[in-house]
């Protein structure tokens, strides 16, 4: 049973556009939902994270929207830039323990 489902698998956006990646989770005990950015040959780097008592969190061009009742959360990248081209992973964890990751979304931002 895949506990965190991520979509789409790949995404192509024009420079300046909005990139939206979605995730759905199964386990209602999860209490921390981070998004990671990964470049080829590098480890995942934390981008932004949210806890379930908040419906939205914004940091610069990156926003997480969280819907607890639907068990869904999404990452919005505003004014997407070619340098944002990378693989993005959503994840979920409980009580600061192990993270369960989605399968990733490969984002390509065209100049």
């Amino acid at each position, binding site marked *: 049973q895949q506990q965190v489902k*991520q979509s789409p698998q790949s995404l192509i956006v024009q420079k300046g556009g909005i990139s939206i990646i979605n995730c759905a989770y199964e386990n209602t005990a999860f209490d*921390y939902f*981070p998004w*990671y950015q990964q470049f080829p*040959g*590098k*480890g*995942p*780097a*934390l981008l932004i*994270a949210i806890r379930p008592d908040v419906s939205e969190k914004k940091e610069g061009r990156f926003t997480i929207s969280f819907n607890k009742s639907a068990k869904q959360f999404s990452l919005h990248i505003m004014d997407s830039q070619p340098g944002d081209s990378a693989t993005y*992973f959503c*994840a979920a*964890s409980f009580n*600061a*323990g*192990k*993270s*369960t*990751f*989605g*399968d*990733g979304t490969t984002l390509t931002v065209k100049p």
Partner: protein
Amino acid sequence: GAGVSQSPRYKVAKRGQDVALRCDPISGHVSLFWYQQALGQGPEFLTYFQNEAQLDKSGLPSDRFFAERPEGSVSTLKIQRTQQEDSAVYLCASSSGTLKETQYFGPGTRLLVL
């Protein structure tokens, strides 16, 4: 240190060989995680340490996988009698005792078993 470091960065092993992968977490971080990332997939949990105690090893795929963190800092992931299906990137992450949910990842060790 500045971040989580892992060595070696690349490892080629012949099927049946034993390998040892090292992780140096951020200084002072009490929690340490190992993940396995197959090509085109998200990382999958292997095992978790809090200081020197291995609190969760539920993700280790077989008894050929063994991890240790004897002094609560550096950790080693050992794979005995490697198989082709062990080929993956092995990621280490650490987290502090304060912002403890935030995991900081190393660059990974890419293991290729021939």
